[in-house]
């Protein structure tokens, strides 16, 4: 199965792409002006911030960024499009030939470009008497379009990719990721030779459902020895199936020409001045590189919380990556909501733990206290009991240790070594030594 996505995200600028209208409004048709309504005589001018956000995204994907970029007119007739052409990019997108690593799978990013959103059509009224209303507040809102190659292998993978990207883009340019509806996708899917495009799927869940439905449809066709026809379909959210799109094939000819009103932009020069902020994924990769921690684990930490990953990096420096990972992925991440803000105290506790001043159990208790939780002593008692059991079991089977102890107290080292190994690091060496001394002396 091959899946490729064309994803559209709204860029979080305050004003629209080609005019100074706000990008949000409380009443329909209030955030409009002569430019985004296409008044004859009006003219677009570029919102630089949108261009910069787009370029940061292109850089993030390690795209090739052209020296010069420009906009194009995509002409088609539709009631929500005031000019009956959309200003988008065609020959000179701000980014091309990039890549994204979905775990260890390389997903090629064919292009990144920016464009204006059309208005929004609303159907209102009782069934059978519906009328269409158009809200132009969305007309001219900046979008970034990201087009992947057919490198995704399942609807689940496609969903995971978009899910990850939402998080990444939130950190990168501030895209609002709370609402999973923010993404609009055209999904290309092929189970055999021909691909089918499912146009304009709104939201993450619908995307996955649409892809699953289409995969099943194609599978059935192929199993029955029938051919999949190359076509454009749409996803019916109610019936959870894909249907042939009503638009005719011929309408795919958008007659692109250059947009003469906006001029050209020195994309590479603008991009050179912009820096790509560290995103969760980039941080995980860096942490993995620097500490040797598995990248999947590093991502788990980063995805749990940005501040947890910052603490993890501090701990790596203080107590070493291995212990830092144990603590971070264990007690720290499980109570992070309560612990956030007490980083200095946590570092202090774990420093004491690392130099042997306190036991692991004590450290755990203190951290729980930082999280505002009383830990039952039973826990600790239980552990101590377990340690004692381990010691006496060993002494039972190795009476020679007790026998030799009087002449050579170092015979206890064999017991300590064994118990430390059995305890898999749960017990502190000082604790173990103490328990062994007590155990042997009790049998003398």
């Amino acid at each position: 199965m091959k899946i490729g996505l064309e994803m559209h995200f709204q860029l979080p600028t305050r004003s629209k792409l080609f005019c100074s209208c706000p990008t949000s409004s409380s009443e329909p048709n209030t955030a409009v002006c002569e430019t985004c309504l296409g008044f004859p005589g009006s003219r677009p001018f570029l919102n630089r911030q949108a261009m910069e956000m787009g370029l940061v995204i292109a850089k993030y994907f390690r795209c090739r960024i052209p020296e010069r970029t420009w906009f194009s007119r995509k002409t088609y007739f539709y009631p929500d499009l005031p000019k009956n052409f959309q200003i988008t990019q065609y020959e000179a997108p701000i980014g091309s030939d990039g890549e994204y690593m979905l775990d260890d799978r390389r997903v090629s990013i064919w292009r990144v470009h920016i464009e204006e959103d059309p208005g929004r059509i609303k159907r209102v009224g009782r069934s059978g008497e519906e009328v269409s209303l158009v809200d132009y507040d969305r007309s001219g809102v900046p979008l970034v379009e990201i087009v992947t190659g057919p490198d995704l292998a399942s609807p689940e993978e496609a969903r995971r990719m978009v899910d990850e990207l939402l998080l990444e883009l939130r950190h990168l340019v501030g895209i609002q990721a709370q609402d999973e509806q923010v993404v609009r996708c055209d999904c290309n899917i092929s189970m055999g030779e021909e691909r089918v495009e499912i146009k304009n799927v709104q939201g993450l869940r619908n995307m996955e459902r649409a892809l699953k439905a289409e995969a099943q449809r194609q599978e059935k066709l192929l199993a029955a020895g029938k051919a999949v026809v190359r076509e454009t379909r749409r996803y019916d959210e109610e019936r959870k199936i894909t249907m042939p799109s009503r638009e005719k094939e011929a309408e795919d000819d958008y007659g692109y020409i250059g947009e003469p009103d906006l001029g050209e932009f020195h994309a590479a020069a603008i991009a050179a001045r912009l820096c790509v902020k560290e995103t969760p994924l980039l941080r995980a990769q860096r942490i993995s590189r620097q500490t040797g921690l598995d990248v999947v684990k590093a991502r788990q930490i980063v995805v749990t919380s940005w501040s947890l990953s910052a603490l993890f990096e501090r701990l790596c420096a203080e107590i070493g990556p291995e212990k830092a990972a144990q603590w971070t992925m264990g007690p720290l991440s499980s109570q992070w909501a309560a612990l956030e803000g007490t980083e200095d105290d946590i570092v202090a506790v774990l420093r004491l733990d690392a130099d042997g001043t306190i036991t692991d159990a004590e450290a755990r208790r203190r951290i729980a206290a930082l999280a505002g939780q009383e830990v039952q002593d039973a826990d600790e008692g239980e552990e101590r009991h377990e340690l004692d059991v381990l010691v006496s079991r060993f002494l039972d089977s190795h009476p020679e240790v007790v026998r030799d102890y009087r002449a050579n107290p170092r015979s206890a080292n064999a017991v300590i070594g064994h118990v430390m190994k059995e305890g898999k690091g749960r017990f502190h060496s000082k604790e173990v030594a103490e328990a062994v001394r007590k155990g042997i002396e009790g049998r003398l």
Partner: protein
Amino acid sequence: VTLSLRRLRQLDDRYHFLREAAPDLDERCRFTFSAKDNICAAGMEATAGSRILSGYRPPFDATAVRRLREAGGALVGKTNMDEFGFGTFCTNSGFGVPLNPYDTERSCGGSSGGAGAAACLIPDHVAVGVSTGGSIACPASFCGVFGFTPTYGRVSRYGLIDYGNSLDKIGVLSRSCAQTEEAFLAIAGKDERDPTSQAQPPLPAGGRPVRSVAVPVEALQGLSAEVAGAFDGGLARLMGMGADVTEVSMPSLKYAMPAYYVLATTEASTNLARYCGMRWGAREEDVNQGFNDFFSAPRSKEFGAEAKRRVLLGTYCRMVGFRDKYYMKALAVRKMIIAQYEEVFARHDVIATPTMPFVAPRFDDVRAMTPLQNYSADFLTIPPNLAGLPHLSMPCAYAPLPVGLQMTAPHWDEMTLLAFGKEWENGFDFRWPEVEA
């Protein structure tokens, strides 16, 4: 200011050059001006000569209009034009045809025909026109006035109803070159509302002297006898003013016309897409139909024949399969022609040609023309327009109707043309048409 609204209406009753007169006229103004009907002025109807825009009253001033008002000008009206600028004789307006002040059975030229007539009929008047492929120079030639088209991008197009955005230029028609210059200086300059105006270098204080004039031999073919004779006289006068005249060859100019019509119609077909009765254009009564039918009805009803022809041509030129062959190739030809101009300007100060190959034609002759003959009439004005070069049409003789001489300068070198034009008008024997009071 000697013009009164009464006088203006009298003139318009006879020559039909206005679309709409201003409701009042501030007599303390420094000068009067008119705007071609595709230039927006707040509250006044702006139809670009098209019935599909009947009733459109933009709530804003075009930058050129605003700047002329700020310079002390009073807007007296909107001048008639070929629909969206599609024409050479101003016979393609949805609102009647302006008549040539020298002979009312003849054309004013187009597409800024109303502006040509206004400039000719009203002393001390600034008629703001727009040129895409020669729409300022042509009416200036036929109406015996100065017609100045600046470099593409020199004057903000904010508030201009688009024909071909990469070619449209706002300029000035007037009886006097000095007044033309004054108006040009008022409207020129960067404007944040038109990004293409922002690449311009500052205007120099004055022009360079015109010492060497190039005349492309290709421009001397297909001229009427009157124009050929008048142009020779014009060149003689040029030489008398101390300029050398040299014939040059510019073979690539022959590709200018096809390239121009491809680019202009291609852009026009996208610009006119919005006039579909949804937000712009007369709305269909029956809303219970598919949107394609709903959109087609007003376009079929309200666009004139020439507008339909250009929408079809332009749409064809950008369709998949034809785009590379026509649109992309035309873009390349434009670059080639600019390069050819640069070669000539490396050795000469300006290029001179007649403006039009004939004097203002009679309306019955215009009606007999095929579209191709019609388009071919622009073969002298199209090259500088395609290349975005500044050019000035000056009255150079009367045969007995006025004949224009067109001078073209390098990009951004408007001041050389205007300085020369002022020299030219000094001592030129103007013959203004007799207009009944």
